[in-house]
């Protein structure tokens, strides 16, 4: 009995589902007993039926936002990785460009969103650009710090074996940097969703951020909350993909965490 209970508590998925269900039931009861109006706080049931009713509309806008997120993120991944590699091996660029880029992080990038619209127009380009700007930095920093913190002994080992620069990069430095890179990716994938929504808030005629604004301005409670739910699911989904990839690509990175669990 005790043992089974313990095993249940250790099962992360079961615990997540359980705690979510408790929240949903509590929420439903709250709305029911206090007769909260729909425009203020719709019940979970109302939200789900709204999602079902407006499925086509929500799907269309989700695709727009997802497209912006993926494009911006992919560009940031390519650019951040490339620039990170270059900076990691160039002391001159590290002292100049890298310092400069770190300094620009003091600018709240949300404030740039309207400027991007002025520069890049009302279309999707300005949204992709903000996602890119938000995602780029964590990926680049992850790459640089990963490549620069290779264990010295491993590099000396490569040296003794007569590895050339390219070999020691490919076989030692880069794999060793992967956990750091994934740290950056996890941060930036969360930022990507935020970036897309904010730039759609600023100016857009489609996308989830746009439909969220419209729904709230028309006091459509269930629709508003449907969009928020989708955004939450989108964020969780993208984050899970990155986490899953990390497990696949560098399973050694987190091993110390799982190993420290006593499995009794």
């Amino acid at each position, binding site marked *: 009995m005790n043992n089974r209970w313990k095993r249940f508590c250790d099962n992360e998925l079961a615990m997540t589902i359980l705690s979510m269900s408790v929240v949903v039931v509590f929420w439903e009861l709250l709305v029911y007993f206090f007769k909260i109006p729909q425009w203020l706080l719709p019940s979970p049931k109302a939200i789900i039926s709204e999602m079902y009713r407006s499925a086509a509309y929500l799907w269309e806008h989700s695709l727009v936002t997802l497209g912006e997120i993926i494009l911006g993120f992919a560009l940031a991944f390519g650019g951040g990785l490339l620039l990170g590699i270059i900076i990691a091996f160039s002391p001159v660029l590290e002292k100049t460009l890298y310092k400069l880029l770190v300094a620009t992080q003091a600018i709240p990038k949300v404030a740039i969103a309207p400027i991007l619209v002025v520069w890049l127009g009302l279309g999707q380009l300005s949204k992709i650009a903000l996602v890119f700007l938000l995602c780029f930095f964590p990926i680049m920093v992850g790459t640089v710090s990963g490549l620069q913190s290779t264990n010295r002994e491993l590099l000396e080992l490569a040296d003794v074996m007569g590895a050339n620069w390219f070999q020691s990069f490919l*076989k030692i430095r880069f794999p060793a940097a992967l956990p750091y890179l994934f740290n950056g990716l996890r941060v930036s994938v969360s930022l990507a969703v935020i970036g897309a929504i904010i730039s759609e808030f600023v100016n857009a005629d489609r996308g989830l951020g746009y439909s969220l604004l419209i729904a709230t301005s028309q006091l459509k409670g269930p629709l508003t909350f449907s969009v928020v739910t989708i955004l939450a699911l989108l964020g969780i989904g993208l984050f899970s993909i990155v986490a899953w990839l990390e497990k696949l690509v560098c399973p*050694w990175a987190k091993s110390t965490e799982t190993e420290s669990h006593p499995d009794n």
Partner: protein
Amino acid sequence: MPALLSLEGVEKTYWLAPNQTIAALGKIDLEVQDREFIAIVGPSGCGKTTMLKLISGILKPSKGRITIQGIPFKNSHRQLLGMVFQQPALLPWRTVLNNVLLPCEIKGQDLRKARALAKELLGLVGLKKFINRNPRELSYGMQQRVSICRALISDPKILLMDEPFAALDAITRFELTRLLLEIWSMKKNTVLFVTHNIQEAVFLADRVVVMTSRPGRIASIIDVPLPRPRKEEHLYEQSFSNCAKTIHQLLGLNAL
């Protein structure tokens, strides 16, 4: 016929800042013959690691020269060298077998042949069952055995070992010491073995190089009068303890 390895007036000074230096290694003159087993003992910080790094080409000497078979260091010398560090320094993303194969991959050797040899070596050190495991699933002593196999895979003429057993418990330590002697008697490499342990040095080596504290110089080179193959009984013989005592005194005198 020149010695296999020779150090002539080798010095090493580390530059910490433009006007702050550390003289790590004094003036080292040493000749090592083919198939010799040399142990190096000395107080901590006397430059033993530095010396191995100079020989392996990781560092360049500030003064003097190092020659192998009479030829000053050049890149092709790396083919003749294998190194075991104090830490196993295995790549966590590679299996045990692929860690051992790393030098062959880098040198572009025939991997099929190398794989067979790697398995043989891993079997020799008692890790046959673990070849497809990840290093982190192995104990520290097992990892160090893997790193010894990695050093041996390219059949180096000179094997450099930097306190490879220092972090092991006494039992594992002695096991690996015996294993090393066994391998050495088969492969007949030349070994330079750094250690803090006087008993270990005497038990393993033909000659023990005793160093002074920083800047490291050679205080004396002691011949070990024990026959080969070495056996546990040798540990209790008079000549063994005499030899150990001499080294002890040499180190004790230089402790200040």
